[in-house]
């Protein structure tokens, strides 16, 4: 889990900073930030090998659900674990996110310890 590269897709700078702050728990973690789904896809198409994606749902330009769907359809990216972090707490939203291929669904406000545990469960030791 050392040296992991995380892609944080979130339009709120406050949330991006909070998530990045939580990810400092992982040794030598590198956090790459994207402001929406399109921005994230550009980064994913680049040379950086991303180990895990954390994405919001409600974002301008391209939302998180569309991003999850596109990543899962891409043969080179489909194995990257994805965690959705959102204000949408309804059960049908959770089911939809997981059905599209997200590995975990976390509702805001986030608990740092919960986020860390979820990531630890998804990434190999």
């Amino acid at each position: 889990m050392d040296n992991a590269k995380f892609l944080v897709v979130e339009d709120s700078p406050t949330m991006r900073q909070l998530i990045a702050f939580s990810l400092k728990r992982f040794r030598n973690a590198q956090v790459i930030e994207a402001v929406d789904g399109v921005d994230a896809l550009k980064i994913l198409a680049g040379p950086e090998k991303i180990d895990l994606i954390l994405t919001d749902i409600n974002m301008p330009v391209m939302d998180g659900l569309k991003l999850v769907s596109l990543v899962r359809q891409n043969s080179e990216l489909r194995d990257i674990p994805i965690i959705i972090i959102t204000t949408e707490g309804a059960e049908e939203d959770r089911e939809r996110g997981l059905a599209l291929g997200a590995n975990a669904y976390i509702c805001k406000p986030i608990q740092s310890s919960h986020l860390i545990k979820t990531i630890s469960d998804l990434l190999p030791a």
Partner: protein
Amino acid sequence: MAEDQRFDKFLELFNKGKEFTEELLRENQRLRYRLATIEGEVKQLEERFHEIEAENKDFAARYVEIEEQNNNLANLYVASYQLHSTLDFREVVQIVEEILINLIGARTFAILLLDEKTNDLQTVASEGDDAMPGIDKISVRLGEGVLGTVAHGGESYYFSQDPRAGAVGIDRPLAAVPLKLKDQVIGLIAIYKLLQQKEAFAAVDYELFALLAAHAATAVFASKLYSQSERKLNTIQSFLDLLTTTS
């Protein structure tokens, strides 16, 4: 003769048997003592095991507590950092909104500022007016109703602590937090509804309210002053440009 030999043989065997029995008794005695010692040690180990188990539980509880504190501090740090990251009024208001949604878990809320000339509190930003129609254009006189009283007295209001509270409404929010510069109130934050997954305010939320009360007020005030000084600077610059051109 043969009788004597048999007797001696028997005596020899008897003595050997006696020695062997005595040896067994001594060994038995030694083993009993060893068993008693081991039983004492096992008891001590069991006691130590229970002590360590209790310590372990205590450490686990403290770990959870520290994790929670760590989480709370991260929230406070990020909120404070973001609030002072800009001097643009709209951006400051947007950051306050982000803190309310993402860190506190507010679904429906309004941010009101006090107009010093009219003594009216008015909405400058709101979210979720579908759940609470009218929050986008609240206008309350200082000292009137719950919101006016909060702005006038500078003390936070919590619906859960109000024995007279009936139902949440425009003037009776879940929480109303004054934005204060020392003792001067410049506005307030009123929260009407929390996100579906958030049942009630957590301990950290009250810390965030305290932080918002002071830091959001400073950030809002500083950004307003900055925009005013920018406007004045532009006016003076235009005036100077006019003087230069006409002369």
